[in-house]
């Protein structure tokens, strides 16, 4: 009976996950053999090249481009996620305190996250253009949208601006289920703010924080629209793996585009598995839920917020 009831889900999963995945892997083993005949027409055929598309990623011009995109993807992921985590934590700590206008602040902090990435890319493009606000405020003449380190910084700034609120809000939710009594007890024992942060807030908020960071990691590894809109396609300084796969498919080289997509998929999967195994991120939130339930049961009269 259980199998029968689950079968529609299984079918849907097979259709939307298994089939595309297998098809992409299959496609990545073929290469388009195109040539032009004497009359100028394209002769076309697909040949099985085995792992040829993957080997091409390691050699020659295409190899350099791939390694550059791989390095960019990793660099952006590491820098943006670390910055977002720190900033998100600070935001959450600020929002967790009781003060006037707190709900207004919470709502407004969500705005960057609510703005579509392509639109925020355009907004930041205006800010970062050569006679834009960024150069005006800094009193500099940095060409943010040209190739170079400045374009990387521009992407990082825009990305952190957009996604730190996401971590902030998730962490805030985690902070709110920490019972007030724990802090009261700590105060009576003479623990200062830093001690409370290190021994109470951070350990108790860790499960939520890990899930938030995991989501951000997976998202950042697939980064596409922000560098595409903010800096532009084809700029080596900010080209990510997703952009490379897009470009290849745009040139009708579906074989190598699939190879890029498969590699990116494996990369994302490995990062996710390692993250879950090593840090024990509780992705589905069951542990946390259980904990929260137990807490509320034991302290029904506790302060709600």
């Amino acid at each position, binding site marked *: 009976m259980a199998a029968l009831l689950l079968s529609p889900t299984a079918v849907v999963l097979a259709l*939307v*996950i298994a*089939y*595309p*995945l297998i*098809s*992409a892997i*299959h*496609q*990545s083993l*073929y290469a*388009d053999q*195109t*040539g*032009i005949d004497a*009359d*100028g*027409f*394209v*002769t*076309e*055929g*697909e040949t099985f090249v085995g792992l040829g598309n993957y080997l091409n990623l390691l050699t020659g*011009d295409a190899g350099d481009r791939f390694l550059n995109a791989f390095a960019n993807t990793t660099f952006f992921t590491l820098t943006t996620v670390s910055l977002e985590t720190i900033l998100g934590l600070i935001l959450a700590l600020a929002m967790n305190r009781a003060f006037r206008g707190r709900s207004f602040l919470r709502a407004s902090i969500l705005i960057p996250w609510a703005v579509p990435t392509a639109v925020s890319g355009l907004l930041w493009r205006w800010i970062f*253009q*050569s*006679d834009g606000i960024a150069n005006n405020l800094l009193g500099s*003449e940095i*060409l*943010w*949208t*040209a*190739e170079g380190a400045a374009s990387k910084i521009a992407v990082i700034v825009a990305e952190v601006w957009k996604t730190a609120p996401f971590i902030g809000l998730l962490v805030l939710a985690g902070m709110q289920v920490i019972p007030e009594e724990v802090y009261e007890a700590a105060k009576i024992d003479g623990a200062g703010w830093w001690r409370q942060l290190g021994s109470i807030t951070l350990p108790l908020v860790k499960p939520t924080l890990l899930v938030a960071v995991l*989501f951000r990691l*997976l998202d950042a590894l*697939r980064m596409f629209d922000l560098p595409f809109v903010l800096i*532009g*396609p*084809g700029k080596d300084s900010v080209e990510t793996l997703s952009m490379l*796969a*897009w470009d290849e*498919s*745009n*040139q*009708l080289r*579906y074989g190598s*585009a*699939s190879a890029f*997509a*498969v590699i*990116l*998929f494996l990369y*994302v*999967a490995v990062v*996710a598995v390692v993250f*879950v195994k090593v840090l024990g991120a*509780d*992705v*589905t939130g*069951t542990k946390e839920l259980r904990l929260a339930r137990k807490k509320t049961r034991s302290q029904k009269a506790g302060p709600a917020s």
Partner: protein
Amino acid sequence: MIQRSRTWQSILTTSASLAIAAVALTACGASTPQTKAASPAAAFEGKGPINYVSSRDASGAAQKSIDEWNASHPDEKVSVVELPDSADQQRQQLVQNAQIKADTFGVVNLDVVWTSEFAANKWIMPLPKDALPVGSMIDATVNAATYRDTLYAAPYYTDGALFYYRSDLLEAAGIAAPPKTWDEMKTACKAVLALPQAAGMSCYTGQFDKNEGLTVNFTEAVASAGGTLVDSEGKPTVDTAAAKQGLSALVDGFKDGLFPSDAITYQEEQGRRAFQEGKVLFLRNWPFVYASLSATDGSSSVANKFNVTSIPGISGPGVSTLGGRNLAISPFTQNKATALEFIKFFTSEDQAEKRLALSSRAPVYASLYTNPAVVAKRPFFPTLLVSLDNAQPRPKVVQYGATTKAIQEEAYAAISGKKDTNTALADMQAKLAALSSK
């Protein structure tokens, strides 16, 4: 246990979107046939309703032409299928539709640079040469719709470079005529920039950001020095003295401070703003910026202070590249006779003239540029005609997408000082050679 499998499920779900993206990229490739079917005989048979697949025409001029056709052809109605605004996405949809040989796309609206790719892949049909009044069209537009001596598309509208200059400042410096060559431009700049009212201005800008604009400006620089990027077979010819002269002019422009230092981030819009705010003396741009430059509502500080001419050459007269769009017929549509008749009607001089009332797109018929009624409304048209008469298309190659990427990559490396001119051109030659042999 449940929790663990859920963990996996989450990971899978997250990665699934990737896999979906991957298959979206690959689905069409998978169905590619082993060899191309023989060219469909150029028989235009079948009448009935067709789809016209096009980018958006905000002016509504195209829709008026279509409405007129539909009113007189009730059994051969044309419906518009609108494509996304981004040219890349338009091309992708058109290609995917052609690869699965779908008969839904009848008449397709193609960017001029796609002609070779679509023709070589037999995604569009050769047109009977006598079907169109090519004699009264501007030669360059017909050339851009031709692949290997066969006409594949009907020129719809065109675009060419204009050289905008500050007539007020040239006059103040006592320069009677706008520069015709790069050297004359430098001399003029020297004289003008010495004037107190030109303090802080730069000499010239075009489009140098790493995108299609750079390909256009580089092609123009090389052509204006007497060179070409590819020969008639699509083989590259950029490792030449003329190409070097063209690229060096751009490289030196940055090195000597002739261009604003941030011009390397300029696309059409940024250049327009720099000129409109009085930051540069000369500007290479398309005709579409004319309207905002001459706006008299206070938004433009150069209204009535500028004029246009054709772009200066490096060693001879300047050579503009060609923009614009062509209409072509998909070989997979059922109603080819209707499609051909519709193209003839839509691109006729009569319809082109009617569309001028609403649309600022430049027509392909030379006579319209000297028509007094038209010129009164668009004073730059006679200049544009000169530019178009001398225009050259961008490289006519099958792999245009990869070709323009390679050109941008190397030209950008040269103007940003990462590579010297010789290395950049040698690398460009090698990359284009590899692409043309594929």
